[in-house]
């Protein structure tokens, strides 16, 4: 009886926590006046406001030092802002408890420039790894992994080790790993940075397809051609502030 009441109270508390700082219901990422200063030097982010709706596809572009990486780290709750509010999927990332962070991150899929695959394990294991971490039963893993590998076009290569794959294929494995836990948001940090143009395009098409299936996709990139061609929302950053935020935007040249 009392256990039941405690559970109900806990759930209520969590819901209150999630709803704090009333975000609009379709906003999945909210950054309000976010600044992040490191111990030395100028702030990496300075009063950034960013609102991203559920199901959007957003490019974040900017040179190195523009604050893109800091932004990604803040969204992953690797860093805490010095000022401002960040709310992702209803989680208040400034006040979230340490032990709640893993649960929060399970809503995000992350893809890196350097793939970050486990080199000693094959494609299947690399993807299954993500499911093991969130403690899915083996039976479900056996069902989910082949299906996600088929989605990224690697159904035939599940036994290959990462070094036997091309860069494009490795990035597909990484995307499969990011997607297998069915995240609401996919964060891709320079996903085509290490790929040739042909593979870059294929990866971008894959990300677009994932977005069409309902996942919110954030892509941090340098790739001017792709940004210009895809006609998506483009957020341009420079020296820690957002200098432009356009629907169907293009890559803004840095010529001042």
């Amino acid at each position: 009886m009392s256990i039941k009441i405690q559970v109900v109270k806990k759930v209520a508390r969590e819901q209150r926590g999630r709803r704090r700082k009333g975000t609009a219901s379709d906003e999945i990422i909210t950054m309000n006046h976010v600044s992040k200063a490191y111990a030395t030097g100028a702030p990496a982010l300075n009063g950034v406001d960013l609102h991203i709706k559920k199901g959007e596809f957003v490019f974040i572009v900017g040179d190195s030092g523009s604050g893109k990486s800091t932004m990604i780290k803040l969204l992953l709750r690797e860093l805490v802002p010095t000022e401002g509010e960040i709310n992702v999927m209803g989680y208040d990332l400034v006040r979230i408890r340490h032990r709640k962070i893993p649960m929060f991150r399970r809503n995000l899929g992350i893809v890196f420039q350097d793939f970050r695959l486990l080199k000693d394990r094959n494609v299947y294991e690399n993807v299954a790894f993500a499911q093991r971490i969130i403690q899915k039963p083996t039976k479900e893993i056996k069902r989910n992994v082949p299906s996600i590998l088929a989605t990224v076009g690697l159904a035939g290569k599940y036994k290959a080790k990462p070094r036997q794959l091309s860069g494009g294929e490795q990035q597909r494995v990484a995307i499969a790993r990011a997607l297998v836990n069915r995240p609401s948001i996919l964060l891709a940090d320079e996903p085509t940075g290490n790929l040739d143009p042909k593979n870059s395009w294929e990866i971008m098409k894959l990300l677009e397809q994932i977005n069409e299936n309902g996942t919110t996709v954030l892509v941090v990139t340098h790739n001017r051609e792709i940004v210009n061609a895809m006609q998506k929302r483009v957020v341009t950053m420079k020296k820690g502030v957002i200098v432009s935020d356009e629907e169907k935007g293009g890559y803004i040249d840095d010529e001042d």
Partner: protein
Amino acid sequence: MRISTFFYTIKQGIINIFRNKWFSLASIATISACLFLFGLFYSILMNVQNIVKTAQEGVSVTVFFDEGISDERIQQIGDEIQKRPEVSKINFISADEAWDSFKEEYLGEYADGFTENPLENSASYEIYLNDVSMQPALVSYLEGLDGIREVNRSDITAASLTGINALIAYASIGIIAILFAVSIFLISNTVTIGISVRKEEISIMKYIGATDFFVRSPFVIEGMLIGAIGALIPMGIIYSVYNEVISYIIGKFSNLSKLLAFLPVNEIFAKLLPGSLIMGIGIGFLGSIITVRKHLRV
């Protein structure tokens, strides 16, 4: 925790051990050395204790009476001695019995030359103590009694045996404590290396949303497995050589064979084996949990 997660964690723990073989081996070797010494000292202590106990039970004080003492007085003295708390057993040996056993032990067929009992005044009480350290007190009490001519005390000085035992105990505690510290240090190093080797994997795990517990447990399992292996090796060695060592000692000191009352190997291992396993696994657990808490700020 799911069963599949449990097995996954154990598997990762085992993989960790093999991933840095040399450090794992060094840790296992140190724990083995530590617990080998522990097992050795434990066996020695238990046996010395057993020998002391057997010897103490055998230690007796013998009381002879004044010439011409009455049987009633002897009976009375016997009753009084019996009442002493440190006395475990008292035997009356009549003059005839004393002579009979003397004849048998030393004279054999030559005893036929005696027509009278030369030990006529040698009736005695053999008094056994339950605590040898009380022997001096009992002796002075007996010497104060009326009708007693002589008190013979046994030559085995219990004090020296007890002293040896204490010395072994202190020395072993000291050495084992040092080895414990070394073991924990080495396990900690092994786990640290394991963590640095898997740094990338750990960071990916954290991005995907692994809980602290999930990230940490393979390393703790690794430490505990190292501890368990490190405990089983010396136990195997001690178990297999125990009987041979004892028969060697008995052979070497056959003149002391009555005194050397060794315990059977199974009796030693009934406590030694679980004790060592608990210690080995405990060292492993401690060493790895300390390290994981320090180096895995998740």
